């Protein structure tokens, strides 16, 4: 039986959203992944702060139905002093129920860099939002949000699966300003080798401009 490694750290992000004419919108996202501690379960571990990567992403989306939207985007990642480039296409379905909302997201993306093989991914995510007070999310209200995502990837003919589970608590200050705090848990590499686990303290700030 093999060992599993882990990394723990912070994952702060800022999302700037802008509504455009004719149901179009624009999303700018800045995210930084910062490690605090790494190790092997049942083995050695060490605490060291390091910035693993920084992302800058831009996406543009359009509502195409009552509950559906599509979006395409581009991400620039700086990791190990090297840039990676990712193109993204996504489709969202949003459903409102009596006491919560469910969002389904399907994403395909393609990542390119000078020193790695191209990586192609297919992602499926379901998100549940439950307001703490009432049937829909209002200003000055807390809410719970949970993400569950499956990421299938192919790189140099090698398949991998990553699973993410992200429970969060959010607060909507007003219709244009939300803040979320939670744990972003990810596990990958368990298809072809020993599993890798990561635990990020996730801090998301959503601003509508």
């Amino acid at each position, binding site marked *: 039986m093999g060992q599993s490694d882990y990394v723990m750290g912070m994952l702060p992000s800022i*999302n700037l*959203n802008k509504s455009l004419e004719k*149901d179009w*919108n624009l*999303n700018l*996202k800045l995210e930084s992944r910062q490690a605090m501690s790494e190790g092997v379960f049942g083995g050695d571990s060490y605490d060291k702060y390091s910035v693993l990567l920084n992302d800058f992403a831009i*996406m543009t*989306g359009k*509502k*195409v*139905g*009552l509950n559906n*939207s599509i*979006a395409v985007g581009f991400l620039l990642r700086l990791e190990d002093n090297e840039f990676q480039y990712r193109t993204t296409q*996504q489709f*969202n379905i*949003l459903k*409102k129920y009596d006491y919560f*909302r469910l*969002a389904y*997201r399907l994403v395909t993306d393609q990542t390119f860099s000078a020193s790695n093989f191209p990586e192609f991914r297919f992602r499926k995510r379901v*998100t549940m*939002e439950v307001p703490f*007070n*009432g*049937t*829909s*999310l*209002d*200003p000055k*209200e807390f809410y719970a*949000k949970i993400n569950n995502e499956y990421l299938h990837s192919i790189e140099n003919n090698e398949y991998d699966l990553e699973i993410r589970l992200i429970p969060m608590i*959010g607060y909507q200050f007003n*219709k*244009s300003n*939300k803040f*979320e705090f939670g744990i972003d848990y990810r596990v990958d590499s368990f298809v072809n080798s020993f599993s890798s686990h990561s635990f990020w303290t996730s801090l*998301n700030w*959503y601003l*509508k401009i």
Partner: protein
Amino acid sequence: MKLYIIILFLSSINFAFGQNKFEKESRINTDEVPEKGLQFISKVITSSKVKWYFEQGLTVNSYEAKTKISNRKYSIEFDTFFNIQDVEIEISQSEMPKPTISKIEMVLDSIYKKHAISKIQIQYQSDENTLIEVINKNSIENLSPNVKTQYEIIVKCKSTGRPKLYEFTFDTEGKLISKKELIFNTSDHLEY
């Protein structure tokens, strides 16, 4: 004269129907509900669980008790002094009188290329004792003539562009009384 009537008709449509629906609904605990509200509920509901809400509209605030009686969803609305305002019961399309739903379909056909009804509530307005009878009867038929009855209908509509969701109010004859577009909450944090 004919032109004047058309202009008057169009401007009245814009005034009555060109609105959006904004509501802030907050859950409140039963112990925050005054005795008057609890007394009304105790006369009509004995065992079911009741959820209480405070609704803030653009001009009017109200309280609402939501419950299920014999698998039917009930919303009982009060003003801020806990005077009963109306009772709404969720029903299916097949429970509506055929002439009424046919007339409503005709009205919707005349406005939109496509439409699909997603929710129907029958709304009763009357004095307190009559509304208690309505709830205790747990039936949507054979009501006394002093009950004002309307239908609140949520409809997905499409004419040009993408579909939109509206809340329509019709009377029992299928005459359109009001139309409000339902505005969705932002969903950036669920999509990106």
